[in-house]
C-alpha cells in the first residue's frame, strides 16, 4: 500500500501541433491539443469524452509516450515523462497498459491467444516461463473466456471475445494504469454490457487507474468516476460524473448531454454546426461559434479553466448553473 499524494499523470499546458505544410506565410499547423491541463489521480477512473477531432486519442498518445508534446509537459509520478522513458522505458511499459480500439488489428494473426496473452508475462519476466500457460489460463478465465481458447487464433474468435483477450493481455502485465481507446465501441449492446461490467469489476478489484477514451457519454458515466470533456484540443470541463450529468457547467457539455438519445424525452439537436477545423482555431473561446449562450467577450478572449466547488473545473466565462437542459 503506497501512500501517494502525487497524481499518476499530470498534463501541464500541453500543446501538440502537427505541421501540415510550409506555407508562403509561415508553416500551416494543425493544433491537435492546445493548452491541455489534467491530473489523473491514482486509483481513479477518468473518461476522456468528446467528438471526433477533439484530441482525445492524441492526448492518450502523449500519455503513453508515443508522441512528444510540442509544448508543455507530461509528468508521470511527478517526473517528466521523457526522462522517465529514457531512464527506464521497460518499467513504464509494464506499469501502463493500453487496450487498442481495433482489438483484432492489435494482435499478431500468427500468434495463438495463449502467445498473445503470455507475451507481456514473458517480456517483463513476471513469472517463470514454465508457469506462463497456467497464468494465461487464469487470465482468460478472469475475463470470462474458457482457457481452451488459448490454442486458437484471433480470427477464430468473435468481436466480443477478442476484446476480452485484449483486456486479458493488458492484465497480464500487472499494470498500475490501464488506458483504453474506444474499447467497447461498435459492439452489440449485450456484448458491450458484459465487457463494461468486466472492466468495472476489474477496476474495483485491482484498484487500477483507468483512462478511458470514449465518444459515448453513457459508457463514460457507467464506467468512470470522473469525466473530462474535450473540444477542439482542449478540456472544457472536468469533474465527478454525477455532478456533471446533473448540472453541466459548460454549454458544450450540456449540448452533448441533450443530444444523447433517451427513452424519457424527445430527441433534440441543441447544437448546430460541426466542430471547426483545428487548422485555424477561432479567436476567443473555441466553442463560441456553436454556443447557444455566446456573449461578445467570448469571441475576443479565450477562457481559462476556473475551479468550481466539488472538484470541478470549467473553461467558460458564463458557466451554467442548475439542471441539465430546459425543463
Amino acid at each position: 500500500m503506497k501512500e501517494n499524494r502525487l497524481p499518476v499523470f499530470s498534463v501541464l499546458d500541453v500543446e501538440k501541433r502537427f505541421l501540415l505544410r510550409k506555407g508562403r506565410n509561415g508553416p500551416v499547423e494543425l493544433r491537435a491539443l492546445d493548452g491541455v491541463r489534467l491530473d489523473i489521480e491514482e486509483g481513479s477512473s477518468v473518461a476522456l469524452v468528446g467528438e471526433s477531432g477533439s484530441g482525445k486519442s492524441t492526448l492518450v498518445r502523449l500519455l503513453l509516450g508515443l508522441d512528444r508534446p510540442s509544448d508543455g509537459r507530461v509528468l508521470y509520478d511527478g517526473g517528466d515523462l521523457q526522462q522517465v522513458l529514457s531512464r527506464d522505458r521497460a518499467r513504464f511499459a509494464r506499469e501502463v497498459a493500453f487496450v487498442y480500439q481495433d482489438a483484432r488489428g492489435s494482435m499478431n494473426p500468427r500468434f495463438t491467444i495463449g502467445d498473445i496473452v503470455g507475451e507481456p508475462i514473458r517480456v517483463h519476466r513476471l513469472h517463470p516461463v514454465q508457469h506462463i500457460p497456467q497464468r494465461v489460463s487464469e487470465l482468460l478465465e478472469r475475463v470470462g473466456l474458457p482457457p481452451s481458447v488459448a490454442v486458437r487464433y484471433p480470427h477464430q474468435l468473435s468481436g466480443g471475445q477478442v476484446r476480452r483477450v485484449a483486456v486479458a493481455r493488458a492484465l497480464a502485465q500487472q499494470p498500475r494504469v490501464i488506458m483504453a481507446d474506444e474499447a467497447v465501441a461498435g459492439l452489440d449492446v449485450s456484448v458491450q454490457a458484459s465487457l463494461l461490467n468486466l472492466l468495472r469489476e476489474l477496476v474495483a478489484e485491482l484498484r487500477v487507474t483507468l483512462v478511458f477514451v470514449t465518444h459515448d457519454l453513457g459508457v463514460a458515466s457507467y464506467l468512470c468516476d470522473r469525466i473530462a470533456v474535450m473540444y477542439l484540443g482542449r478540456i472544457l470541463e472536468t469533474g465527478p460524473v454525477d455532478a456533471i450529468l446533473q448540472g453541466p457547467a459548460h454549454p458544450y457539455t450540456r449540448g452533448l448531454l441533450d443530444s444523447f438519445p433517451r427513452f424519457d424525452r424527445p430527441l433534440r439537436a441543441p447544437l448546430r454546426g460541426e466542430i471547426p477545423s483545428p487548422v485555424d482555431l477561432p479567436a476567443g473561446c473555441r466553442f463560441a461559434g456553436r454556443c447557444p449562450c455566446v456573449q461578445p467577450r467570448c469571441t475576443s478572449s479565450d477562457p481559462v479553466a476556473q475551479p468550481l466547488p466539488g472538484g470541478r473545473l470549467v473553461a467558460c466565462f458564463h458557466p451554467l448553473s442548475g439542471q441539465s437542459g430546459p425543463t
Partner: protein
Amino acid sequence: MDTLADTTLLSLDALSLARGRADVLDNVTFTLGRGQTVGLIGESGAGKSTIALAIIGLLRAPQVALRGSIRFDGVELTTLPESEYRRLRGNRIGLIFQDATAALNPCFTVGAHLAEPLSRHLGLQARERRQRSIELLESVGIGEAALRLDAFPHELSGGMQQRVMIAMALACDPQLLIADEPTSALDVTIQAQIMELILERVRARAASAIFVLHDLALAAQVCDRVVVLYAGQVVEEAPAAELFADPRHPYTRALRACSIELGERDALVPIPGAVPGLEDLPGGCRFAPRCERASARCAQTPPLVTDGTRRIACWHA
C-alpha cells in the same frame, strides 16, 4: 374513406430468405402505413439490414431463396423484373446507408451523385438538375451549396457526406425512405441533427420510413412503431412508446436491460450466451437457449399473436 389498401404503403407477408444453408429471415411479417415510421431493432445477425436489402431488391434469386411476399403500393416486389425495380430504387424508394464514405463514389463529385437520379428518373436537363441539386443540398443544411456541387466526397466531413446521401435519397421525393443505421458512424451532436433532418424531410413529404437502428433510445424517439427481430424472426412489434414502457417479450426486456441510460450506475444485465449462427439455429423458439423464462413448451415455435396494438411471439408473454 380510407380502406386498408389505401393506408398501407408496404407490407411484408411471411417473408423468408435463405442463403445457402443459412436461414437469414424466417416468416417476417409487418406492414408500414403511409406517413408512418417503423424501426427495426435487434442484435447483429437479426436480419435487420437483410430486410432492407430485400425490400429494395438487392437480394434476389438465384443468390438467395426468397419466399413470401413484399407488396409496395399495391405492387408485388418479389417477382418484379429488374428493369421495373430500377424505376423504383432511388425514385419512389430512397436509400440511406450507414457508411456514407463507402456509399459515395470517390471519383464523382457531389453534383454528379445528385444529378444521376434527377436525370435517370425525372429526365431533368443539365440546367434544371443543377438548380434542383442546389435546392436539395440547401434542404439538408449544407451551406454554400453551389460550391459544394464541385466537391469530391473526401473533401467533406462524415456528417456532410451523410447529408449528401440524404439529399440523394430525397432527390425524387420518395414515398418510402429506408435508412440503415444512418447515424451510427456519427458523433452524438451530429446524430441528433441528422435524425431531426431526416424526420423533418419525411414528414414534410408525408412519406414513410424504415429505420434500421441498434440504439433503443433513439428508436423510441424517432419511430412510430418498432419491430424487434431476433435471429431472423419477428419476436415483438408495438407502438414505440408502448414497447419500451412495457416490453413483454423476454428478448425485448433483455435488450432494454443491457442498454445504457445516461447517468445509470446500476449494473447492466447482459444477455447470457450469444446470437446463434444462422446455419445451426435451435428448433422451436430461437431465443429459448438464452431466455430466463424458457420451458419445455419453447421447443415449439411460438406463433406471432396479435394482442391489441401489439404482436408478440412468446409462450410466456
